[in-house]
């Protein structure tokens, strides 16, 4: 049986909690968590270290809340979706009738990589709707940019307000619409200089060889290997499903490697491409999904020239 603001609902209740002080955060989060525990619902905290400590200190002793390490959960959006879907499926299989989670995008995700977290926030309205989940996504209005807060309003159907109400977001946009919107892709500062590699119509093997030739610089072995996987999948996707010509470009700096793969087509038709594995074997669905879990930032960009996918391994600028 659903409880609290989700009583009587099926599927996912996805709320944003925009707070302006620690007191406002706790005023909403503590009753939310205590209510879940009192209803015997699996109840989780996936906040960053500072806010987790605040909540931990404010909760009554022995409140049976599980703290997930926010940094690990929210490393990459697609990995977070994969982890949560498995968690939710397991909990429901064990008999849970509602699950409560308070989470937050880490501060690093609120900067230049926010766009893929905005896509995450939109996509999970669909991705978690198979389960009786009530979650709140916490955003500190003191540190979140106005563009971030506008996306929060567009991707959360409800707000949990600091005075205890639950109100619909008038700016909410269905994920199928939000995810099809053309979002700005500001160039990585590294892209202002000519690329080290610029190949027209490469095979996946040629693109991989070019990455190896440029070398991994300061990247860890695992980051570099995963980037090669992402490049191979992305070029393969462009060749298979895009419209020629496919163009592969690569820039490398001390702390990151950036690649773009573009073609003259419109890009993936599935709005969830990259965030969810294709459920029906739709073309390219798995390759982009793997790509999103193999890089530290992936962006989509559409313009009158076609579709461009940008991959960043290592430390994205501003992170």
């Amino acid at each position, binding site marked *: 049986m659903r409880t609290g603001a989700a009583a009587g609902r099926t599927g996912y209740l996805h709320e944003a909690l925009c707070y302006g002080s620690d007191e406002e955060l706790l005023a909403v989060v503590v009753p939310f968590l205590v209510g879940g525990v009192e209803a015997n619902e699996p109840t989780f905290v996936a906040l960053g270290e500072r806010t987790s400590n605040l909540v931990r200190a404010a909760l009554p002793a022995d409140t049976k809340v599980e703290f997930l390490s926010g940094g690990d959960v929210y490393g990459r959006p697609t990995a977070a979706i994969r982890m949560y879907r498995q968690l939710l499926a397991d909990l429901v299989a064990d008999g849970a009738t509602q699950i409560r989670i308070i989470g937050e995008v880490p501060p690093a995700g609120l900067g230049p990589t926010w766009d893929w977290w905005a896509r995450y926030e939109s996509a999970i309205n669909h991705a978690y709707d198979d389960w009786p989940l009530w979650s709140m996504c916490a955003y500190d209005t003191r540190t979140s940019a106005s563009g971030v807060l506008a996306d929060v309003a567009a991707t959360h159907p409800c707000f949990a307000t600091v005075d205890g109400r639950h109100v619909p977001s008038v700016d909410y946009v269905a994920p199928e619409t939000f995810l099809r919107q053309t979002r700005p892709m500001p160039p990585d500062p590294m892209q202002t200089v000519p690329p080290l590699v610029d190949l027209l119509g490469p095979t996946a093997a040629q693109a991989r060889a070019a990455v190896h030739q440029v070398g991994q610089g300061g990247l860890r072995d695992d980051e570099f290997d995963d980037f090669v996987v992402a490049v191979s999948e992305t070029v393969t996707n462009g060749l298979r499903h895009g419209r020629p010509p496919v163009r592969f470009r690569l820039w490398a700096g001390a702390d990151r490697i950036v690649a773009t793969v573009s073609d003259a087509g419109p890009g993936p038709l599935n709005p969830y491409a990259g965030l969810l594995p294709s459920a029906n074997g739709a073309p390219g669905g*798995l390759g982009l999904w793997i790509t999103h879990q193999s890089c530290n930032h992936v962006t989509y960009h559409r313009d009158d020239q076609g579709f461009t996918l940008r991959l960043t391994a290592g430390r994205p600028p501003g992170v």
Partner: protein
Amino acid sequence: MLTDQPPPYWHLCWAYDDPAGFMTHAVEFLRGGLAAGERVWFVVSGPAEPIRDQLLGVRDFANALLTGAAQVRSLDGAYTSMAVIDPASQVAAYRRAAREAVADGYTGLRVAADATELVRTAAQRDAFARYEQRVNEMMRTEAFRAMCAYDRSQLGESAVAELACLHPEHNLGQLLFRLYAVPLRRGQAALAGELDPSNHDLFRTALDRADLQPVDDTLVLDANGLRFLDHRALIHLNEYARDRQVTIVLRAARSGVARLAALLDLPDLRVEVAR
């Protein structure tokens, strides 16, 4: 250029476009055998005599041809069938010849064979590819080395690739992977090179033709030389294992292979990372 992994045995595929160039490489290959005390056979597609006469004038070969250390044979003097090869009987024939060479005091038998005439049709290539893998396995225990040469200008690149991928070494620069038997302590076969959509069909065919035999319901593939494989190849390996009710182990793989496999639901595939 030859592929960069050192071969566990010497079983080399040599695609050639120029018969004279092939002759040069074959002679060098066989000269190495003579130096190692092996009996050597040069198996040629036409009559043996003209080539034998030619070799009589080549350094190191004149005396060896007279003693029988070096022999030039026509294809039908070395292969049991000129139509569609029977892998088992051909392997048995070479095993017998290798053992005879050892019994005669040589350290083994080394063969350079132009097999172009034996692989002109799809059916011939299918059988010959299966034979190549059986030869790989035979070399685990027999003092036998071979260079299989194919005229690319007559057969085409893709036909040669069907055969080359089942050799530990080949000179096809565009062919990205190899699948070949290795010492059993390393597994039933090695999977080396790179697997991506450009060679998935060839890989599927090669895996079927290799007809790998599991031990205790497990097929171990040595992935030490596997530089790259994509999710489609992993999924195919899992399906291959499931269809045969075995578990496939990718042993000594790069850690990225394990991370990729962990993203996919592959219950019949296990990845063991190189230490």
